[in-house]
C-alpha cells in the first residue's frame, strides 16, 4: 500500500518462481533449437549451390594433358619433327609430405645422380603448390614400372605417359627446325596459362619450332580424377583427349637435307639449295650442329658446355647468321653489272698477274693473259674485274648486287638473319666519314674489303642468275611475286656462260667438280675468301683458324636451270678445293642418289662414321678430358 514491497518469500513462492524460470530456460532452449534449424536450412538451401561447388572442387582434381605437338614435314610429307612416346616421373610439391624419404627412394629407383638431385631440390624450393617438378624424363620401361610398383609408398609422385619431340634426322635439322623446351617462369607469368606449368608441355624455343609455335601447339586434353584430402587418387572420372597441333609443311627435301648435312662432314660450313622455279628452299644446312633431340629432353649442363666449347660453333646457324667475304663468287654478278653499264663482254683485258692502280699493284692469283668476260669468270681473274671496277666504280655495281639479294634480309620463317654489307660510297661516308676510293672498288669487286654476305644470300644470288627472276627464298608455301630481273639476256647469258666454263670449260677453276652424270651439267663459281687479319702464312695451310674460307655457288642443269646452290666451308682453304666438290655431290644426289651415297659412304668411312657416331664419340672424349685433365696442359 505504501510503495513497492517484495512479496514474502515462501515455499509456495519458490515453487512458482521455479516453474516460471524453468519455462524461461525451456523457452530459451527451444528458441536455440529454432535458431539451429534455421541456420541449417540457410546453409543447405540458400548457400547450397556454393557449397556444392566447393565440395566438388575439393573432390575433383583437374589435370591437363599436354597436347601432342604438330608434325613438321618436308615437301613429300616425310617427318622432320614428330612425337614419340615418353615415360616421365614428376613430383607434385603440394602432395609431397615426407620429402627426404621419397627423394631418397627415387634416387635409388631411378639411379639419379648428384646433379639431378640438386636440381630437383632447387626446383622444389622454387615451385609453388601444384606446379609439378620434373624428376626424370624419358625413363626406361623398367624404371617406370619400378616406380609404379612403389607408388603407394611415394605420395606426391606422379608417373606419366606422355609424348616427347623427336627429330628423326637429329643434328641435320638442328638449325633449321630449332628445338623445344619447358616453358620458363617468365613465359608462364606472361600468359598465366596452367598448361605452361604442366609437366611434359614444351614450347618452341628456336627456329621453326618457335616461329610456328601457335600452329604446332595444339589444344590440351583434361583428366578429371577424384582425390582424397591427402591427394591420393581414388578414381578417374572422365578424360577429354588432347587435340594435336597442326602440321607444318616445309619446302625442304628431308633426304636432301640429311644428305647435305652429312656431306659437310667434319667441316664447319653451310649449304643452301633452292628450287629455281619457285624459290623453295630444298636444303638449309649449317654444320656442325646440335642434336635437337638433346634439347627436347632437357640438355645437360655438360653437353651444353661441350657445344659451347667447340671452336666450330655448332650453336650458330651459319646459313643465316654467318657473314663471310664472298670472294670471287661475286664475279658473275659483277659481269652482269658491267654489261648493263655498257662494257662489251667480248672486250678483252690482259692480265699481267695483277692490276696497277696509282702506285699500288693489286695482285691476281695467276698471270692469265688476254681474257674476255666469260673466260675471266672461268679463270676467276682478278685483274679483269679490277679493270672493270676501276672503269665503272663500285657505286655502279652495288645496285646489281642488291638486286641479286646480297645485303638483303629475307622474309623467311623462323630465321634470324644477319644480312651483311654491300658497300658503296654513301655507306662508307655514313659509317666511316670517309670518301669512297678506287681501291675500295677494287677490293669490293673481288668480294673482299667491306663486302660481307651470308650463305643464304649467295644461294639466292645463284638462283636469280640461273632463273633471271627476282626469286625469293621460302620455307613454307608463301606467295612472292618473283618478277623478272631488269637485266638483258646478254648480261645474264654471259654470266651463265662464265659459270658454265668454270665447271665445264677447259681449265675452269672447278673443273674437277663436274657432275658424274650423263647430260646434266652444273655451272658455278668458286670463291676463296681471305680471313681478316691474315699475317700468318698464305691462307693455304697452317692454323685452321687462319686458313681461307672456301665458297661455291652454282646451278644445274646448265641449259635449263632447276636447282641453285651455295656452299661455304669455313677455313676450307679454297672454293674449288673444299666447297665445289660438296656442291657437286649434293646436286648429284638430286639426280642419282645411289651415286651420291657411294661418294658419301667413302667419305664417312674416312671421317669415322655418321654425324651421330662422330658427335657421340667427340662428346665422350670431351667429357673424359674434363674428368681427367691432361697434366701436361694444366701447368
Amino acid at each position, binding site marked *: 500500500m505504501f510503495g513497492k514491497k517484495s512479496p514474502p518469500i515462501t515455499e509456495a513462492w*519458490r515453487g512458482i518462481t*521455479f516453474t516460471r524460470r524453468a519455462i524461461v530456460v525451456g523457452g530459451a532452449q527451444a528458441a536455440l533449437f529454432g535458431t*539451429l534449424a534455421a541456420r541449417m*536450412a540457410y*546453409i543447405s538451401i540458400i548457400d547450397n549451390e556454393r*557449397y*556444392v561447388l566447393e565440395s566438388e572442387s575439393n573432390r575433383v582434381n583437374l589435370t591437363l594433358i599436354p597436347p601432342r605437338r604438330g608434325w613438321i614435314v618436308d615437301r613429300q610429307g616425310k617427318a622432320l619433327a614428330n612425337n614419340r612416346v615418353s615415360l616421365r616421373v614428376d613430383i607434385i610439391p603440394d602432395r609431397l609430405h615426407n620429402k627426404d624419404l621419397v627423394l631418397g627412394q627415387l634416387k635409388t629407383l631411378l639411379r639419379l645422380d648428384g646433379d639431378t638431385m640438386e636440381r630437383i631440390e632447387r626446383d622444389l624450393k622454387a615451385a609453388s603448390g601444384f606446379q609439378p617438378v620434373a624428376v626424370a624424363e624419358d625413363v626406361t620401361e623398367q624404371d617406370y614400372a619400378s616406380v609404379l610398383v612403389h607408388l603407394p609408398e611415394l605420395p606426391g609422385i606422379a608417373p606419366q605417359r606422355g609424348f616427347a619431340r623427336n627429330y628423326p634426322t637429329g643434328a641435320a635439322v638442328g638449325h633449321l627446325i630449332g628445338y623445344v623446351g619447358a616453358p620458363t617462369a617468365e613465359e608462364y607469368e606472361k600468359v598465366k596459362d596452367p598448361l605452361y606449368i604442366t609437366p611434359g608441355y614444351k614450347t618452341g624455343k628456336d627456329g621453326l619450332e618457335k616461329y610456328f609455335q601457335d600452329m604446332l601447339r595444339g589444344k590440351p586434353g583434361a583428366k578429371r580424377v577424384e582425390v582424397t*584430402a591427402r591427394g591420393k587418387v581414388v578414381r578417374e572420372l572422365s578424360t577429354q583427349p588432347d587435340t594435336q597441333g597442326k602440321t607444318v609443311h616445309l619446302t625442304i627435301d628431308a633426304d636432301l637435307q640429311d644428305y647435305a648435312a652429312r656431306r659437310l662432314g667434319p667441316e664447319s660450313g653451310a649449304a643452301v639449295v633452292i628450287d629455281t622455279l619457285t624459290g623453295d628452299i630444298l636444303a638449309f644446312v649449317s654444320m656442325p650442329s646440335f642434336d635437337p633431340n638433346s634439347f627436347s629432353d632437357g640438355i645437360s649442363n655438360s653437353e651444353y658446355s661441350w657445344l659451347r666449347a667447340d671452336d666450330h660453333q655448332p650453336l650458330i646457324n651459319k646459313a643465316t647468321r654467318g657473314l663471310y667475304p664472298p670472294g670471287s663468287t661475286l664475279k658473275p654478278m659483277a659481269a652482269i653489272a658491267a654489261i648493263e653499264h655498257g662494257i662489251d663482254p667480248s672486250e678483252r683485258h690482259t692480265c699481267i698477274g695483277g692490276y696497277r692502280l696509282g702506285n699500288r699493284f693489286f695482285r691476281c692469283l695467276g698471270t692469265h693473259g688476254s681474257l674476255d668476260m666469260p673466260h675471266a669468270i672461268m679463270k676467276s681473274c682478278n685483274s679483269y674485274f679490277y679493270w672493270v671496277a676501276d672503269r665503272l666504280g663500285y657505286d655502279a655495281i652495288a645496285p646489281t648486287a642488291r638486286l641479286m639479294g646480297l645485303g638483303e634480309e629475307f622474309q623467311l620463317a623462323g630465321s634470324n638473319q644477319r644480312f651483311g654489307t654491300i658497300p658503296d660510297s654513301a655507306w662508307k661516308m655514313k659509317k666511316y666519314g670517309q670518301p669512297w676510293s678506287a681501291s675500295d672498288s677494287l677490293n669490293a669487286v673481288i668480294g673482299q674489303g667491306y663486302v660481307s654476305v651470308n650463305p643464304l644470300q649467295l644461294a639466292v644470288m645463284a638462283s636469280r642468275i640461273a632463273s633471271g627472276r627476282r626469286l625469293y627464298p621460302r620455307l613454307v608455301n608463301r606467295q612472292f611475286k618473283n618478277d623478272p630481273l631488269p637485266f638483258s639476256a646478254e648480261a645474264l647469258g654471259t654470266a651463265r656462260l662464265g659459270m658454265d666454263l668454270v665447271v665445264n670449260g677447259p681449265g675452269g677453276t672447278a673443273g674437277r667438280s663436274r657432275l658424274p652424270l650423263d647430260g646434266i651439267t652444273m655451272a658455278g663459281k668458286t670463291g676463296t675468301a681471305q680471313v681478316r687479319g691474315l699475317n700468318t702464312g698464305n691462307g693455304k695451310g697452317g692454323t685452321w683458324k687462319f686458313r681461307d674460307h672456301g665458297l661455291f655457288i652454282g646451278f644445274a642443269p646448265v641449259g635449263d636451270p632447276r636447282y641453285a646452290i651455295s656452299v661455304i666451308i669455313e677455313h676450307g682453304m679454297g672454293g674449288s678445293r673444299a666447297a665445289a666438290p660438296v656442291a657437286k655431290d649434293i646436286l648429284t644426289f638430286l639426280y642419282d642418289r645411289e651415286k651420291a651415297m657411294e661418294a658419301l659412304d667413302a667419305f664417312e668411312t674416312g671421317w669415322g662414321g655418321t654425324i651421330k657416331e662422330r658427335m657421340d664419340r667427340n662428346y665422350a672424349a670431351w667429357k673424359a678430358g674434363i674428368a681427367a685433365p691432361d697434366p701436361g696442359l694444366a701447368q
Partner: protein
Amino acid sequence: MIPVPPAIQRIPWKLIALLGSIITFDLLVLYSAAGGNWSPWAWQQGVRFLVFLGIMLGISRMPLRIFEDFSYLGYLGVLLLLLAVELLGFVGGGSQRWLNLGFMNLQPSELMKVAIVLALARFYAQLPPGNTRTFTALWPALVAIGLPAALVMLQPDLGTALAISIGGVVVMFVAGLPFWWFGSAAGAGAAALPVLFSMLHDYQQKRILIFLDPESDPLGAGYHISQSKIAIGSGGIGGKGFLNGSQSHLDYLPEGHTDFIFATMAEEWGLIGGIGLLFAFFLLIRWGTRVALRARTRFGQLTAAGLTMTIFFYIAINLSMVMGLAPVVGIPLPLFSYGGSSMLTIMTCIGIILAVENDSKTGSRRFH
C-alpha cells in the same frame, strides 16, 4: 487384455525408443564414416550404448534420496579427483585429463558436470526460502562452481569448464536467485571479455579469431569450420545419399566421426536428416524440462532442470560449432559422437532425470 506387469510398465519405453532411434541413426552414420564398415566405430558404439543403457536404467531405479544424501560427498570426491589429476598431470609435465580405470579412460571433469548440479540442487533445497535473495544464497554456489571450473580451465579444457559453469548457473537461476544478479553478472562478463580473452591459450585465442573470420586461414585453423560448412551445405535438402558423402569419405572433413559427426550426417542425409535429429534432441530436452516441472521435491526439480541444461549445452555448442555459429571447442554431440566419456555423462544425466521422474510418480508432492 493381458495385464502388463508393473515391472514392465515402469520401464520408460518411450524414452528408450527415442534414445534407440537416435543411436540407430548414429550407427548408420558411423558405418558410412568408416567407408561402409561396422568397424572400427559403429560396432563399438552400439555395444557401448547397450552397456550404458543398462547403467542408466540401474541409476533410474535408485531412490532419489540417495542422490541427495551423497551429493556433497560426491562433489568433494570428484573435486579431489580433479585436483589429483591436475597435480599428477603437472608432475607428469603436461596436461592430463584422464584417469585410467583399466577398461576405459575416465575424465573426472565429465563426472563434475553431474556432481556440480547435484551439489547445488541439494544446497538450494536445504536453503531456507527467506535466504533466497540474500548473499548467503550466492557465495557458496559461486565457490562450488568456481573451484572445479578453474581446475578444468587449467587442463586446459574451455568447453568442459563452460559446461560445468552453465549447469551450475542454471540451477542457481531456477532456484530463484534475484534476476538482476544474473543480468549484472552477464554485463560484467561482457565487459570483462577482453581480459578473459587475454587469459586464454594462444591456440584458443586463435580459434576464436578464426571463428570470426574463417576465410582468413582456410587451410590452417579455419579448415575445420570451412570443411564442415561445405559438408553441410553441399548436402542440400535431401543429402547426397547414404555412403555417398565425399567430404567425409575423402578425408576433407577432419574428425568426421567425433566432434564433426553432424556434418558427416548432414552431407549424406541433408536438411531432412538434420532437422530430424534436431527434433529428436528437442524431444529429449522437452522431456527433461517436463520432468523438472512435475518433480515432487525441490531437489528433484533443480536436479532435473540443471541436468537437462547440461545435455542441452552439449547439443547447442556442438551444433553451433559445426554450423559456424561458435568457435571450435572440443565438445562432442551427445549420443552421436563416437566416444565413451561423453556418452557415459549423458546417460548418467538421463538416468538421474529418470530417477526424478520415478520419484514424482511414487510419492506425493512436497517441498522442503
